[in-house]
């Protein structure tokens, strides 16, 4: 300001000279961290928290924009009447976004947290609804918050039933880490003592209503091996000191979680792990950063960093670190590895086996059963509940006994609605509208079926189409099979039988034949296994062939079982970071 312009110019020239001579070495030092985490969703957030908590200078790369807790939840406190279309999607939005508009959580109040169809195109070799959230926090902002543990009945599945490959871990490997993440995240639930769904570190469970309780008792009375329990959910029903330390408070039962919770009542990266990592002073969060690929150094036989495209400038920058955690969400983690090619790995990083991208799977949510109940007419509910009862898998648990492999879990809930007489016009209509009558009970259930990973269900890079950042588009080829059809039928039959046992009437069956993907539980492609010839990752979620690259999101899943998977990703991430940092200190990675 006070300096002559010419002086300024000289300075700039001098700086340019310095930059020219030292550019590479300087940039390298500036862009070097102890660890890089790719993705800030539910697993990336945990990687960031654990790595920074162990003292590592960590760069967290997020392809979307920053979303800070509370300040960046624009509709988090919006009243229903504040939405100009009362939360209905406009025709313009629906027409422009046929895929994302199918998602139950996508509405006027949440549009800003979902990826629009044109934003990141992909190739549907087979119909697949890819539901994505590109922002800090990823889909942890809008997730359904169900957090059930796996048991050995799930981990044993592939080996016992002869599909996929054997999981390299068992429940005992993960149990302490489930506890570890549950205590921090805040998981509500009841200790039900079921071998199929191990108990965790629970905050008090949500309440049942009378009809749900009735159903639970009827099912327990008829079947020894079927249980109706309250879902375990990532809601703070009774805050502990660890939650207050995160700045989170008790869940207020608003049930508009997917807009972001200013109370931090449910777990998200935004409310919990990311700010926790930031507090250490060790985290650098870089939003608007699409990872193009992981850099592999053939001389060192290790990954040295990542190539990042800035979504604002479209410039590519390299960042370097000793270890890399890949948590870009299941299919995007596949995409990053597939696009990380070198002489050593011409078919994608760590892909000696050729299985990368293959054996993808998901959860089958196609079917539902609903009905009505005319008992318990003297009781109703008060308030709202961000959770519902859950029926753990009961098919093929102890041994193979059905005409299909594996089984399904189910959600269940009952409720009572009010209805007003809407006939008429004028003052009478108005009076009727304001005096609704309580209706009868309705009951509903939906299935969550395990699908079997197959080589023919895969993702790959399209050979010609590119996304707006010059990265090949992902080609997705994932379909249902005969096993899924049989399971839909069995679920509908069994649920009908249980509903009938409970005295429910007007039972209706649904099979919406939704596309794979709409379950938002896509998994696999970078599966764990014992043998590098048939799997990508070892028991520590570490690439068999590139020891300093770890992957702990849904892509690692060898099989899918029936539980909502996020809790398992969190536990695996904490466990994997613990191993990675110890291994680093021993000089193993």
């Amino acid at each position, binding site marked *: 300001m006070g300096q002559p312009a010419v002086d300024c110019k000289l300075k700039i020239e001098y700086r340019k000279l310095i930059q020219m001579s030292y550019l590479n070495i300087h940039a390298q030092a500036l862009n070097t961290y102890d660890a890089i985490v790719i993705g800030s969703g539910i697993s990336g957030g945990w990687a960031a928290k654990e790595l920074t908590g162990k003292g590592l200078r960590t760069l967290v790369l997020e392809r979307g924009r920053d979303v800070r807790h509370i300040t960046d939840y624009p509709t988090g406190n919006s009243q229903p009447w504040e939405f100009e279309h009362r939360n209905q999607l406009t025709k313009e939005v629906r027409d422009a976004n046929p895929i994302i508009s199918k998602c139950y959580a996508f509405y006027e109040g949440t549009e800003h947290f979902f990826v629009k169809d044109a934003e990141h195109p992909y190739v549907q070799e087979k119909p697949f609804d890819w539901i994505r959230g590109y922002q800090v926090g990823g889909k942890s902002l809008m997730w359904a918050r169900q957090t059930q543990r796996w048991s050995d009945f799930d981990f044993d599945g592939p080996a016992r039933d002869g599909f996929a490959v054997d999981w390299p871990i068992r429940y005992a490997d993960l149990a302490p880490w489930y506890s570890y993440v549950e205590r921090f995240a805040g998981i509500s639930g009841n200790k039900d003592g079921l071998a199929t769904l191990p108990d965790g570190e629970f905050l008090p469970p949500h309440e049942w209503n009378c009809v749900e309780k009735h159903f639970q008792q009827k099912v327990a009375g008829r079947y020894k091996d079927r249980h109706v329990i309250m879902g375990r959910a990532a809601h703070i029903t009774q805050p502990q000191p660890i939650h207050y330390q995160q700045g989170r408070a008790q869940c207020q039962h608003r049930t508009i979680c997917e807009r972001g919770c200013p109370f931090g009542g449910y777990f998200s990266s935004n409310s919990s792990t990311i700010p926790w990592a930031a507090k250490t002073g060790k985290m650098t969060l870089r939003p608007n950063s699409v990872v193009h690929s992981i850099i592999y150094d053939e001389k060192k036989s290790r990954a040295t960093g990542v190539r990042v495209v800035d979504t604002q400038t479209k410039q590519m920058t390299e960042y370097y670190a000793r270890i890399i955690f890949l948590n870009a969400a299941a299919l995007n983690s596949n995409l990053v590895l597939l696009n990380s090619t070198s002489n050593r790995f011409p078919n994608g990083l760590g892909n000696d086996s050729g299985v990368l991208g293959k054996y993808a799977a998901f959860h089958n949510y196609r079917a539902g059963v609903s009905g009505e109940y005319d008992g318990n007419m003297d009781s109703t509910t*008060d308030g709202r509940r961000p959770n519902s009862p859950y029926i753990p898998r009961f098919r093929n648990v102890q041994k193979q006994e059905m005409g299909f492999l594996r089984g399904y879990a189910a959600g269940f809930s009952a409720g009572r609605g009010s209805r007003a007489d809407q006939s008429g016009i004028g003052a009478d209509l*108005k009076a009727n509208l304001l005096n609704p009558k309580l209706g009868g009970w309705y009951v509903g259930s939906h299935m969550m079926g395990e699908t079997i990973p197959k080589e023919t269900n895969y993702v790959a890079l399209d050979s010609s189409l590119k996304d707006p950042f010059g990265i090949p588009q992902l080609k997705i080829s994932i379909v249902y099979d005969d096993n899924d059809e049989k399971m839909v039928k069995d679920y509908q039959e069994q649920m009908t039988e249980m509903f009938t046992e409970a005295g429910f009437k007007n039972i209706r069956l649904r099979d919406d034949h939704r596309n794979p993907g709409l379950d938002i539980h896509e998994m696999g492609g970078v599966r764990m296994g014992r043998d590098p010839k048939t799997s990508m990752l070892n028991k520590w979620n570490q690439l068999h062939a590139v020891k300093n690259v770890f992957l702990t999101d849904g892509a690692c899943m060898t099989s899918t079982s029936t539980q909502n998977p996020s809790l398992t990703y969190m536990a695996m991430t904490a466990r994997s970071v613990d191993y990675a940092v110890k291994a680093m200190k021993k000089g193993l990675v």
Partner: protein
Amino acid sequence: MERRNALKTLAGSVGGLISLPAWASGWTTETVRSARQFLSLSQADLLADMVETIIPATDTPGAKALNVHQFIQKMVADCYDKPAQETFRKGLDSLDGLARTAFNKPFADGDVTQRTALLTQLSQSTEPAQKDFYSMVKGLTIRGYMSSEYVMTNLTKYQFIPGHYYGCVPVPAKTVSQPK
């Protein structure tokens, strides 16, 4: 900052209840559109009279005072497809003609009984276009009215923050309907 202005206009239109978070700098014209004028002023006035006939002011405000006609205009303009929009516009345009046939006055000048009778006639019409038009406006009137700030705050006592879920509470006596 064009989009910020658009946002402010929008905020004004819903009662200034939207504050501007940092996030708003990421809004684009795709996510924020300024309110489009879908109906002419006379059509809008007619719609206001129609919604007021469906849900009139009594000891509490009616649909017109709660701007339900504005809400309907917005919904039809933004959320409905072309054929439905045409049904809506044509229905409105035919209303004065029907009123003149029925009671020799424009719709707005009819008394409550006359206007009510005409709308009831529409609801029972054998012409699909008339019936569709009326049921569309009636449905949206009910929706706009019931989801208005006034009704949700003062009459139906919407709990934004219940803070609880009680699973089994006795039914308050006056709200029980007779079992089938």
